[in-house]
């Protein structure tokens, strides 16, 4: 090693100047760098850039997808909330309607019942009236017959003649009514 340094130092002054380049070395560096640069431009950089771009796209695509999913989820939530609100409103409306309807039905029923009872009452009145009328009529005839028969038996004379009998009965009844009126007074 010492021998080398000494031999290098003892070479000519021009060769010892470190700033003077060796042209062959320059050529080799130039050629070597050119080859490397070509490989880098042609293969290395495109390959790495492609991966970088793909990776960025994958990440951004993932983010976009997640954002979309989130947007969809919140939209669905909104929709559900809206539906819930609608359903509540619907339920309220139906309840209100039912209540109103129920009240109406009740009123109608009451009305109908009242009408029915009125009708029944009226019918009963009419029936009672007619029955009373019939009773009065039948009573009148029966009482007349009975009284006449009775009077006939008592008097011992058959009052067969209807006209006469009726006159007698009428007179008798009129007397009764006069009597009654006098009593009532």
């Amino acid at each position: 090693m010492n021998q080398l340094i000494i031999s290098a130092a003892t070479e000519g002054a021009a060769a010892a100047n470190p700033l003077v380049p060796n042209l062959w070395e320059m050529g080799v560096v130039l050629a070597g760098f050119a080859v490397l640069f070509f490989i880098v431009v042609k293969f290395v950089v495109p390959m790495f850039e492609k991966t970088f771009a793909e990776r960025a796209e994958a990440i951004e695509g993932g983010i976009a997808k997640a954002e979309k999913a989130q947007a969809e989820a919140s939209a669905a939530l909104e929709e559900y909330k809206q539906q819930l609100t609608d359903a509540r409103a619907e339920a309220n409306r139906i309840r209100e309607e039912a209540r109103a309807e129920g009240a109406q039905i009740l009123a109608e029923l009451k009305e109908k019942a009242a009408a029915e009872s009125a009708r029944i009452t009226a019918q009963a009145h009419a029936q009672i009236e007619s029955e009373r009328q019939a009773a009065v009529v039948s009573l009148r005839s029966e009482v007349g017959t009975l009284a006449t028969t009775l009077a006939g038996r008592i008097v011992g004379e058959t009052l067969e003649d209807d006209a006469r009998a009726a006159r007698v009965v009428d007179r008798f009844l009129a007397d009764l009514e006069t009597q009654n009126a006098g009593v009532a007074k």
Partner: protein
Amino acid sequence: MHLPAILPWGAADGFSKQMLLVILSVVIIATFFLLAARKQQLVPGKLQFAGEAAYGFVRNSIAKDIIGGRDFIKYVPLLFSLFFFILVNNIYGAIPVIQLPSFSHVGGAYVLAAIVYVTWIGIGIKKNGLRYFKLATVPSGVPVYILPIVIPIEIISNFLVRPVTHSLRLFATMLAGHLIVMIAGSGIEYLVMQENVLLKGTSVLVLAGAIAMYMLEALIMALQAYVFTLLTAIYIEGALHADSH
């Protein structure tokens, strides 16, 4: 100052170790990234993850942060190639047996700086036409009477000094680091050979220093690759947005 060539063996000018290492670096970088990028999956495996982390570092931390906008992707291949080409060629200096950063010879650094120089001037002209040279050398908002001083300074700093510092920064740090490690190695060898036991013992101190320097060099090797690429990105950004500077 050049090591003797491998082919023909020992010749001053021939196929040198540097040249072999440069070619090897191209093979290493291309193989690694082609393998890492070969089976691309959305969920990366270990190799793909390592490749993506390395690629993403240049793409996002250098190209996107410095150049920005939608244009940055056009310059990623250049920045990416530069970063890993320089990184691997520098790291050679920290690998035992190889132990030679390719850019400890100035030729490679000149070539890369020249590529960058041509690139950013080309971008500036493409973007702004020949007006680019006015934009790059005449700062806006400077009083007219200062311009005669400012314009030459701008021309010198932007168009003359910039490529020189860009290349020499890389070359000088690599050469210096290489020299320090080699001198330490020679020094240790020299001291170990001494008859005097005490003198022989001092080689341990040099060894400790050499290890510390080695660590520092390893850091600088990675750092210089980053600095070179970062400056490239800054130059390109300056050329792209010359009208707003």
